[in-house]
């Protein structure tokens, strides 16, 4: 099987050579990842799809600046991250909802559904994941979505965020501490200790 990264570079070369329709191959290949990332960041499905369209448009318009040093997917995630963070900053919707609010609204039933011995049904887990992500500050949410939801490796994260792998480890640790703090009811008291800032 041929290397997907090389295939992407070949498609990029064709688009830059004037084959506009070849760009559809890239959209087709990466639409679920980009839309999934935008959904994790913005939560609203329709708004996320609009954002994902903008991401692909920006990618098309900036395709001549793709130098192939990073993988195409990392480059695309970088555009998506910048776009979603811009949208969220403009929107000014910071930490609109916390897990505390979820617990207040749904009471102990929410915790009971999440007990380790009784894993949540996928639909419930999906809804909880969205709420949990929405409770995180945008920058940390972006990193958690890329890592925990999209499954990027340290190396891919470093490419997408334009930083070193060591920096990725540090930022991921910090984001997880904040995740633990936001999910303290989920993680229990030990999680509260873990989540108390960098040591």
């Amino acid at each position, binding site marked *: 099987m041929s290397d997907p990264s090389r295939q992407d570079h070949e498609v990029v070369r064709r688009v830059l050579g004037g*084959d506009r329709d070849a760009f559809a191959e890239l*959209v087709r290949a990466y639409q679920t990842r980009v839309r*999934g990332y935008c959904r994790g960041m913005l939560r609203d499905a329709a708004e996320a799809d609009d954002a994902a*369209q903008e991401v692909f448009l920006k990618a098309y318009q900036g395709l001549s600046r793709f130098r192939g040093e990073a993988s195409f997917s990392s480059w695309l995630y970088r555009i998506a991250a910048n776009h979603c963070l811009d949208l969220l900053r403009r929107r000014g919707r910071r930490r609109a909802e916390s897990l505390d609010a979820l617990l207040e609204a749904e009471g102990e039933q929410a915790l009971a559904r999440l007990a380790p011995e009784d894993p949540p049904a996928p639909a419930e887990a999906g809804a909880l994941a969205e709420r949990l992500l929405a409770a995180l500050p945008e920058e940390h949410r972006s990193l958690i979505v890329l890592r925990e*939801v999209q499954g990027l490796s340290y190396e891919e994260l470093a490419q997408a965020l334009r930083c070193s792998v060591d920096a990725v480890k540090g930022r991921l*640790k910090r984001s997880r501490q904040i995740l633990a703090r936001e999910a303290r009811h989920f993680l*229990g008291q030990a999680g509260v200790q873990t989540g108390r800032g960098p040591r």
Partner: protein
Amino acid sequence: MTHQEIQDQLSMLRDAELPEAERRTLSAHVEACAECRALAERWRLLGRVLTQAPRPEADEPFVASVMARLPQPAVARKPIRAPWHFMPKLALGVAMLSLMVLVPRTNGAVGTESLLLSGLPEELQWPFVMEPPSAEVLGNLEEELP
């Protein structure tokens, strides 16, 4: 590693990139410590919940929407001109530079030489581009000068 340091690292236990030595250390501690074992289990469940965040399915109308919005024409790169494209201009430049440097120098050198050497004895009238006079000639000149 202290108990607290272990707890700080527990979220990494699911990371494939965690070095094997660190994984063994964490796993050994988790085996022996009920509190850390419970926390590791909660991290595992939390990770599992996050992986089930909604994932859009492939959607061809989405692809069509993006393609319909692409600007026309495509972002084709400006063609790179072959290096020999510049050759006529380069040749013209070199020719003009040569004219500017050589022509005034040739004419000026003749006029200046004639003017400067006209009043000197014949043996001292050497052109600037030729060999200078010998030491003997120069010695004689020194004696002749007042």
